[in-house]
């Protein structure tokens, strides 16, 4: 019946011919996509560069696309193609998913989900969760959400109130719900979940409220728990085998009670290690990779010991959750350097030998290159020259060589000044990208330092459990191989990094933290967004700026790409917020100045206000004469 109506209109309207021709092409493509949708093979869908079917593009988290229609020669002609307002005004992290002819967009709290028809940009369905707003104040750093997951005809949303929801991808109907935590104990969620086989993996937030972190695997068909691994406490609750799980710092088994022995008394129960970052996966090794956050209170004196396994990268068997190896980046944390940043999987030559690697840019300012089978440290180096809390990581013990001047442990009520990086790290959640063509990582970084003073705090369930005062400000002028002049002070740098040598190839100074997720493409273009709101395209080899467009609000989302009906598109969410939206007054002027706070935040307000918009870019038809979307 619908077909008949459409035909009737088609014959009569001026756009009839165009519609009819377009409809045939779309029908063909939809048939292909529909077939793929039903196939249920997530890896096949991810391998098709027309799709963007998980947060990192693919399981390795490389955020690399084989699409090359947009390239270094023509990206200067890029232009906005269409836009979509999310209707929400909070920090917009993450990015849209695209599968065939449908885009799936998520929002910050209240975590609405839209299914968008790529042909018409109309809304196919909308899911609007009902969540108790009392969850908002127990989310430390804005009510962000890092995105959706897709598998087997289902869209998965991890809500702020910890409810994990499975939606029918075609209709938006709710299939099942799982309550992953308890907001009255300040357990909340901001992470994007990840589907592996028949399981969906998701974490928990609340490290600033003494929440004991964990990762859970739920069945994608009915939401039942399959396994859960805690970050601290008894071995069996952490899914750690004392004889088999390897401590990658030493290459030896972790031994019995590795966590309990590294805490005093019951401190591990409020020991943080929350798991709000990104998940990646190696299908050949069947290993899930992720990191854990800070060990509860920011006052180190209240928790003597290494505080395992906070600040740790875990490699876990995806079927059972058992930890194959673990490596703690920052034992006995004194600075809030959460270890949750994305663990990117690449295969590169290290010292002449092709090696399966896991590379990550830790909050603590060190870039780690490890063997992802064993966890063995291969190259570790600072990815911001200003980093000073440690001089290096000792490769035999795996432990940082601390610089006591910038330590805060035992210095209760003593203000430690000039620590780099600040608590928000040399990089926070904003994910980097990797190009197999250049062999380089493209890393959005913060260049911020801090004064940090611990103080005594008591724990109350559901209440903040912080215990330090912070003052953050721009870092010093140090920069490695800048591609342009720095104008005044800076709080961000976008770098190209070689993980096989531990060196910065070049740096792009930015006035504010680069809080967006990067994208690398086969067109030899790299994309990122600035906190003022510019979507930028740079040359993947040289870092030269090729295109810039000011979107409606500051960018803290991830740049994603896909193709539809023969055209490549770039999409980015704008909407300032997240920890990047926190007021930082000190630094750009005299810190003893009075009223009318000057400095970082006030400056940011000169560039951007709140927003919530998806902007989609493409090349104009004139730039595409005779071209097809490349598939490499």
């Amino acid at each position, binding site marked *: 019946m619908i077909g008949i109506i459409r035909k009737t209109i088609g014959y009569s309207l001026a756009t009839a011919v165009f519609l009819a021709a377009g409809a045939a092409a779309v029908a063909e493509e939809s048939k292909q996509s529909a077939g793929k949708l039903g196939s249920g093979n997530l890896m096949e869908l991810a391998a098709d560069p027309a799709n963007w079917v998980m947060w990192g593009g693919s399981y390795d988290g490389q955020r690399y696309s084989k699409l090359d229609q947009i390239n270094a020669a023509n990206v200067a002609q890029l232009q906005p193609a269409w836009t979509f307002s999310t209707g*929400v005004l909070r920090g917009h992290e993450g990015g849209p998913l695209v599968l065939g002819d449908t885009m799936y967009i998520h929002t910050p709290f209240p975590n609405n989900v839209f299914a968008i028809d790529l042909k018409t940009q109309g809304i196919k369905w909308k899911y609007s969760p009902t969540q108790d*707003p009392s969850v908002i104040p127990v989310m430390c750093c804005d009510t962000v959400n890092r995105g959706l997951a897709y598998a087997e005809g289902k869209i998965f949303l991890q809500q702020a109130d910890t409810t994990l929801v499975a939606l029918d991808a075609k209709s938006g109907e709710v299939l099942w719900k799982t309550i992953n935590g308890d907001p009255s104990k300040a357990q909340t969620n901001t992470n994007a979940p990840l589907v592996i086989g028949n399981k969906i993996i998701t974490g928990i937030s609340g490290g600033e409220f003494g929440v004991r972190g964990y990762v859970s695997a739920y069945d994608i068909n009915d939401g039942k728990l399959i396994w859960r691994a805690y970050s601290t406490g008894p071995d069996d609750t952490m899914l750690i085998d004392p004889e088999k799980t390897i401590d990658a710092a030493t290459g030896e088994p972790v031994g019995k009670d590795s966590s309990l022995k590294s805490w005093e008394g019951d401190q591990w129960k409020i020991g943080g290690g929350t798991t709000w970052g990104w998940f990646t996966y190696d299908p050949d090794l069947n290993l899930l990779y992720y990191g854990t956050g800070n060990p509860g209170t920011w006052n180190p004196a209240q928790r003597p010991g290494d505080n395992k396994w906070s600040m740790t990268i875990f490699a876990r068997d995806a079927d059972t959750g058992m930890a194959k190896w673990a490596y703690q980046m920052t034992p006995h944390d004194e600075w809030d350097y959460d270890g949750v940043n994305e663990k990117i999987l690449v295969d590169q030559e290290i010292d002449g030998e092709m090696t399966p690697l896991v590379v990550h840019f830790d909050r603590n300012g060190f870039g780690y290159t490890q063997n992802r089978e064993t966890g063995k440290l291969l190259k570790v180096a600072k990815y911001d020259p200003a980093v000073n809390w440690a001089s290096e990581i000792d490769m035999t013990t795996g432990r940082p060589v601390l610089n006591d001047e910038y330590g805060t442990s035992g210095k209760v009520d003593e203000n430690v000044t000039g620590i780099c990086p600040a608590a928000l790290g040399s990089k926070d959640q904003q994910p980097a990208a990797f190009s197999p063509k250049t062999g380089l990582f493209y890393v959005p970084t913060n260049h911020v330092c801090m004064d940090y003073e611990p103080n005594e705090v008591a724990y109350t369930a559901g209440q903040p459990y912080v215990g330090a005062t912070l003052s953050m400000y721009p870092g010093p002028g140090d920069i490695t191989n800048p591609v342009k002049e720095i104008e005044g002070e800076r709080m961000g740098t976008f770098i190209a990094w070689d993980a096989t040598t531990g060196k910065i190839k070049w740096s792009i100074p930015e006035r504010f933290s680069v809080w967006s997720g990067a994208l690398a493409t086969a067109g030899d273009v790299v994309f990122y967004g600035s906190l003022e709101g510019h979507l930028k395209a740079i040359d993947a080899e040289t870092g030269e700026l090729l295109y810039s467009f000011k979107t409606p609000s500051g960018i803290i989302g991830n740049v994603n790409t896909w193709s539809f009906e023969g055209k490549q598109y770039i999409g980015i969410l704008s909407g300032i917020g997240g920890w990047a939206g926190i007021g930082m007054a000190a630094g750009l002027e005299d810190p003893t100045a009075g009223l009318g706070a000057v400095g970082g935040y*006030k400056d940011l307000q000169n560039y951007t206000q709140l927003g919530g918009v998806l902007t989609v870019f493409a090349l104009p038809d004139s730039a595409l004469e005779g071209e097809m979307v490349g598939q490499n």
Partner: protein
Amino acid sequence: MRVKKTLIVGCLALGLAFTGSLSLADSHEKQNQDESRSEPKINDYSSMGEEYGSESTTPEMEDTDSASASRVDPPEVTQEGLVTGYEKYNGNCAQCHGEDAVGSSFAPSLVNRMKNLDYAGFVDVVTNGKTVFDSSTGGYNVMPAWKGNAAVMSSIDEIWGYVKARAEGELGLGRPK
């Protein structure tokens, strides 16, 4: 011509009515499913891990609901009190209201807000919280109630002193000397 035009408009309207929803066949099937399954399956793991729950280390709290009515004269806060206020502010309020009370993209600047808020109003909103619903966007702004938090309530005067001094220009950025 006119009849044809009416037919077209009528068909167009019908077409539009169908575009935003499922096809007839699909929606019928969905209706059947809806009738047989009214609620989606809900798995509740919210109390998992409680066997390792941790006890609060803060002392018992008295009921402080009456705090807002008990006094309206603002207290005198000593220099030492301002330091306490600064520390308590940073441990509890700064994550939303920003360093030095300058605000964030998700909570207002208290340097501005406190200019128009007196002591009684301040104690009321801190003690009892406030939820503001914006019906045009469906968005919430939520100030939590701190009455159950002994660390905050025991220093509410000092926190008042700190943010008020910031708002009046008496205190600059950073730790009070």
